[in-house]
């Protein structure tokens, strides 16, 4: 017993406070980013385009069948305009979660989100 009891409690307090601050800080840092989502778009020629959902862009994909405009905004990807007959790809709206898809059948175009990291759901259940 080299230290008095009170001194130990002070050390405890420092240790616990340090761990608490580190933990809260890491939670905030982890939540702040949360991104890393990547979407791939495959057109009727089999060409694959990759979009980072953290960067807002608009991209026009044109093939023999027609055009689709892909827009990335605030972590979501959508088809904002197309000249296909039913425009259901536009009506499918914005997607952002891993595994979600937008499909344009007339233009044989598929938009798919594949995230780099498993932050939302993963295949292992406890």
């Amino acid at each position: 017993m080299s230290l008095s009891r009170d001194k130990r409690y002070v050390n405890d307090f420092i240790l616990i406070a340090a761990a608490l601050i580190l933990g809260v800080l890491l939670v905030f840092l982890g939540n702040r980013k949360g991104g890393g989502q990547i979407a791939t778009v495959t057109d009727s020629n089999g060409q694959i385009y990759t979009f980072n959902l953290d960067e807002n862009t608009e991209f026009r994909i044109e093939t023999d069948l027609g055009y689709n405009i892909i827009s990335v905004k605030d972590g979501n990807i959508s088809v904002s305009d197309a000249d296909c007959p039913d425009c259901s790809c536009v009506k499918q709206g914005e997607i952002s979660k891993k595994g979600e898809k937008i499909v344009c059948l007339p233009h044989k175009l598929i938009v798919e989100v594949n995230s780099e990291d498993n932050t939302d759901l993963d295949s292992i259940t406890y």
Partner: protein
Amino acid sequence: MKTKRIVFLGFALCIALVLSYIETLIPFGFGIPGIKLGLANLIILIILYLDMPKEAFIVSMARIILVGFMFGSLSSMIYAFAGGTLSFLCMYLLKRFNRFSPIGVSSLGGIVHNMGQLMVASFIVKTDIFAFYFPYLLLSGLLTGLLIGVIGNTIINRYSKYLVKWREA
């Protein structure tokens, strides 16, 4: 080992097993898988503070094996072994270091326990869950460790003079 000591450790193991069972009845998780109260660590902490580190380790390992067979599975046993050995090692060294009360020792033990389990989990699952879970497991380990530490500290301060008799018996 003297008979009385064997009896004492048998009692301790028994209490640890019952605490492990009670723990399964208490819902405590916040939706994060793998979070437990760690009540059995109370017993390990008390034996450690009776200056019986070897015995504390034996009780800890025996508890993990028995709990694994009774309530768990092989995989839960692997997790428990990783967490148990790592947290024991950490608590033992921190106690030898002699700068912290049982509260601090138990808090760090709780954190390290979760880190050990997370290491095994990230080795098995092979995705980068480590970075994602780390902060949450750190906080939950701190919380449960602190809780156990406060209870353990009270018990050690009040009863160690009676319990020490078993050690010298």
